[in-house]
């Protein structure tokens, strides 16, 4: 796989960032993890990934960040063709109602995880979202059988074969 699907984590608190990375370790051999501490850095990272011909499969984003906030970043991504299909998850204990509604309506938010999160919940969300992403965007689903939702991938594979014939 020379074209990689990235997971991007945006979080300004370093200890929290480390915990998130640790919890996503098992995915990293399939989906490289990239990190950013604020929106402008995240934008640079996104540009870099896209420019090198890779994709962003999933972004886990904190809301309250220095400078621009997380929901703004998600909206920017939604308005950009290369990142429109990326699965967008808000990980925060702090977004107000209005911000969350804005994220759902304007950024097509896929999921909301409240801090403090649980390892199981986080993994479930990541598996679900990435499964959706690869089914919608990848031709070859076999490599992901090990790490993502095998049952749904098999279903999708069967459907794909039906449509191919």
């Amino acid at each position, binding site marked *: 796989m020379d074209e990689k699907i990235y997971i991007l984590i945006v979080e300004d608190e370093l200890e929290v960032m480390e915990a998130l*990375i640790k919890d996503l370790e098992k995915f990293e051999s399939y989906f490289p*993890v990239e990190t950013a501490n604020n929106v402008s850095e995240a934008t640079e990272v996104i540009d870099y990934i896209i420019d090198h011909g890779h994709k962003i499969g999933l972004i886990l984003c904190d809301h309250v960040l220095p400078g621009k906030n997380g929901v703004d970043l998600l909206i920017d991504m939604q308005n950009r063709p290369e990142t429109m299909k990326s699965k967008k998850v808000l990980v925060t204990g702090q977004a107000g109602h209005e911000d969350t509604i804005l994220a759902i309506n304007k950024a097509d938010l896929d999921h909301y995880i409240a801090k403090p999160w649980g390892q199981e919940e986080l993994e479930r969300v990541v598996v679900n979202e990435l499964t959706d992403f690869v089914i919608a965007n990848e031709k070859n689903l076999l490599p992901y059988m090990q790490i993502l939702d095998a049952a749904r991938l098999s279903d999708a594979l069967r459907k794909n074969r039906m449509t191919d014939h």
Partner: protein
Amino acid sequence: MSKSTGIPWLNDNAAILNFIHKLVDELDELQDQLMALNEGELLFSQGEPLEFMYLILEGNIQLTRTQPDDTEVALITLGPGSFAGLIAFTTGEPTLTSGRITTKGLALKMRPQQFEQYLNDHPRLKHPLQQLMLNNMILRYKSNLRLQTKTHLLSKELNKDRNNLKAAYKQLEETHQMLVHQEKMATLGELVAGFAHEVNNPASALMRSAENLVEIYTGFEDSDAAFKLFKFGLNSEPVDSSTLRKRMLDMEKKYPWIHERATIRKLAHMPDKALALINEFKKKGTLPDLVNHFEAGKMIQNIRIASRRIANLVKSLKSYSRQDQNKEQLADIREGINDTILVLSNRLKFVDLTLQLNEIPKTCVFVGDLNQVWTNIIVNACDAIEERGAISISTSYDDNLIKVKISDSGPGIPDEIMPHIFEPNFTTKNQGAKFGLGLGLAISNEIILQAGGSITAENRKQGGAEFTVTLPVRDDC
């Protein structure tokens, strides 16, 4: 007795009455017109057309008027020499008043036509009657003037009273709101104090567990290298993501045989000395273990940092919400400012905060109340700069006065609202979801005034608003 240019004796009701009495004695047809006035009788009622006019010779008639709200007002009591029903009689319109006899006596009762007749038939009667009528009119006119003046005065008084009442009511309303607000704050303070107390236990447990874990863990370490790596992890600093990216690139070059990104990232967290240990001790297949010793130290360090943060927040929350609000105490105001800043750390997270808390003497204050003042001013500043900007807080001491200045880099206070900012219920917040209810500055003002100090606001030349709180130094608590 009025001084008129009229004939003096004609101005004297008594003289005229005497004269009329004499005439009545002389003239038979006048005798027939005499009627006895019986006390308590109603002579005529308001709104009726009047057939007769009465000239009172003896006794009294009281004129009353029924108001739209059915209350009866006594207007005037007519005595001998006065006409009753004179106006209705003259204009021919229904009477404006009711006439009730209050003292028995005697009256001359006349129909309009008769009256004309008398005047024509008895030239001698003409003058006194006319004079009497004129006198009556003058009297009524005077009383009317008096009444008008009185009414004017009364309505002025009434207006004044009404305005006073309005002001008093507004004041009461404001005081009530303030009390409710204070009560809310006090309750909130109690809850916060209780909450802080509760959180304190798990925070302490966390801190202690982290330290105990360090001791136990060091006992587990089976090799010198592992123990050292654990120690390195324990003393590591968190790395920001852009530095981490650079270091990860270095690691990829340095360890081309490592393909796991997660391992590369862990190595990127390590200081050079730790990496040297890894290079020295890694045998085939032991790399993940070695890295994990460092990781374990790093995680315990994270628990330490996080639990210390919680403990500090709890500490400031506890002292911020001190429940000694009813007692003045000698305190360093700067401590309250620091507590407030910590409690507001969520609002101040991305604010460029400059503190210049110069040495000031301790003074007698209600610590909890003052904290409310700092909170109100700082929260307003946060709103003004929309959480992204600069706020600076300074303390100074001069001439037995402590000055606390809080300024922001916001748009400043518009001139038109500047005079009103300390008024109760003045708010620029239209959503109740914010911290304040528009009572913040009014209450702050109240608190500072009670402490014998003053609070002022102005716009700075370089932009933004600046609040100055001045407090006298006291040690009499």
